[in-house]
């Protein structure tokens, strides 16, 4: 019974079927099984797809599709784990592209990969004003804020977000990471960010590190 459910969960994620994946997760917890079994199955399938991505036999849309298909199932499993008093999520992150910048691809990939890695992600989209970032941090209690800017003309908006966080007294409770084509490590650190990510793949490791779920930042 459990084996069959886990197999179908695996298949649903490989078929990019978010609804089916969520239903299999529900079936698992309804049967009273340990949500950790589901977490492991999802980690395995995403790891397989990640390996195929590295090998060039699967591509970015496959990674995105699998990660987002896993999201619904993860929510079910995480809620059940919380009720049981264990199996916490890696953390909550607010992500978005800064005001004046409409580039979305990189930050969406970061969002998908973080979801796949077990983060609860609030993705705000593009052209996000500082006030909205700050409001989202407040509403979700996020411990992590990820800002993206592709244009040199918009990179300075990241500074505005950090200043507003500071003004609202939230800065000490939230880690901030910056990335995107216009952002350099020097710039990120100069405006007061906690970390800089050069690629989407790095961002996941940085997020884990900032939230203390991983000891070293991948760089």
């Amino acid at each position, binding site marked *: 019974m459990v084996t069959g459910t886990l197999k179908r969960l695996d298949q649903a994620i490989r078929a990019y079927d978010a609804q089916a994946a969520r239903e299999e997760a529900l079936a698992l917890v309804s049967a009273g099984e340990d949500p950790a079994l589901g977490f492991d199955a999802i980690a395995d399938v995403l790891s397989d797809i990640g390996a195929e991505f590295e090998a060039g036999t699967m*591509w970015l849309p496959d990674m995105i*599709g699998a990660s*987002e298909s896993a999201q619904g199932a993860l929510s079910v499993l995480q809620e059940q784990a919380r009720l049981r008093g264990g199996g916490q999520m890696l953390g909550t992150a607010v992500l978005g592209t800064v005001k004046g910048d409409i580039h979305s691809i990189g930050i969406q990939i970061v969002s*998908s990969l973080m979801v796949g890695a077990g983060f609860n992600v609030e993705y705000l*989209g593009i052209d996000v004003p500082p006030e909205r970032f700050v409001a989202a941090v407040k509403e979700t209690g996020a411990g992590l804020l990820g800002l993206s800017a592709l244009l040199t003309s918009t990179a300075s908006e990241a500074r505005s977000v950090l200043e507003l966080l500071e003004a609202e007294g939230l800065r000490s409770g939230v880690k901030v990471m910056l990335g995107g084509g216009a952002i350099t490590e020097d710039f990120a650190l100069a405006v007061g960010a906690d970390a800089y990510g050069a690629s989407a793949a790095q961002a996941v490791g940085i997020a884990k590190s900032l939230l203390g779920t991983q000891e070293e930042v991948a760089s």
Partner: protein
Amino acid sequence: MTGFIRRFRPTDLLSRSEEDLIHGAALELLERGGVHVRHSRGLEVLAEGGCRVDSDAQLVRIPSSVAEECMRRIPSSYSLTGRDPATAVRLGGSRYHFMQGMGMRYVDPDTWELRPGTLKEVDEAYLVADALPNVHVLDSTQSISDIVGVPPAMQHLECVASAYRMSGKPQHVGYLKHFDEFNVKMAQGLGVQPDVDIDIAPPLSLTEDAVDAMLIYAPLGWGLEACPGGYAGATAPATIAGLVVQWWAATIAFVTLAKLIDERAALSVEMAGGFLHPKWASPINASPESWYAEGMGNQLCRRYQLPIAAAQGFCGESKMFDFQAAWEKALGILSSIMTGSHMNVFQGSFATELGYSAVLAVMDDDIAGAIGRYLLGAEITEESLAIDLQLAMGSEPTSFLNTPHTREHWIRDRFLPSVADIGPYEDWVAAGKPELIDKARAKVEQIVAEHRPKALSADEEGIIEDVLREAREHCREQGLISDSEWSAYQEALEQAGRP
């Protein structure tokens, strides 16, 4: 069948009236001036076909009606086959192919020096060409034609034999007295069909060897590739138009003789020659004037659906594998293809044909792949227009990454280079800033270590060796290989591990 598909009509460079003027001028040259044919049987054939022949002067005036009738009977395509049936090529129509390049000597990518290649390096050149996905035809006319220890009389046949050993792909061969007989024996023994590159000496002359080759190869059904080779201001008029008139007249003369030799003759054309350095009069392969002249010639070929095996873009004048080498190749090849060529000699040629490099062939193969993808164009269907998808996604900022349509089409028909770096800058830095040439070098090493061509059967090996042995004996008997050359030859064969 291999090759790329061109989904769009080639570009015209000439108006219809300009095209008619050039065609008319070429016919006038042949009817009033004539073509020299230095071959008694060739002269007889042309006389029997209705041409006015002055045997003493070896001059043939070709009536326009005869020329036009022969041109109308050109097949629009022909086949080349190699040992591996899956690699067969149909030259012509909407298909496009790349042919391995040629060069006289081996290029040392560390010093840029040119030196004679060894038999082992010739083998490697063909092995790498066999492995490269966008090399469709091997050029065994001259890929490293200056071979250490191999007497000139045997160099071409050794190249052909090496290409058969190292590859199942079809071959493009040359012609030469004391070669043709053995070339045919080897091909027929292996059951393959190459095509043959035959020169027309500028201004308008067919040599005895050239006509011999036409008489041998036309009845076999092998494609005959006419190669007019005038250079503007030197062996042809200095103007683009005058040069093209000469090229076209030479092509018509060649086609006329081929068709009168054998009605079934399959034909193509490679308009070689072009423009010279204005100060030194050295050939400039990569000149916009030559590219444009060839484009005009291509348009004339399309008038008769004559398959075009072009040379434009196969090499330039750069002395290194650098930015200049890349633009000379890329612009040349693209201008040729856009005006209708069906095959271009390309991968590995270097510095005005002076050199050949397998490392360069690997880098060139990425250019070939990119151009092949460009030719494929865009499919216009309900599925590809994706109207329903776009309506469903709406106009608010959103992402198409996680849609079945994207997963279906993300990688389909996409060009991915083998060694060119199209990845993110930070990945390149993280990898230690590798240079393209080093990646190409590593690729060559990998191919040599891992790639194995379609295996020769014992019978096929025997055929190649028997024909080589017979050719060597023939050349010795004919005095084409001296005793000292023979010793060096034996040593070269031994070093290459030849039987």
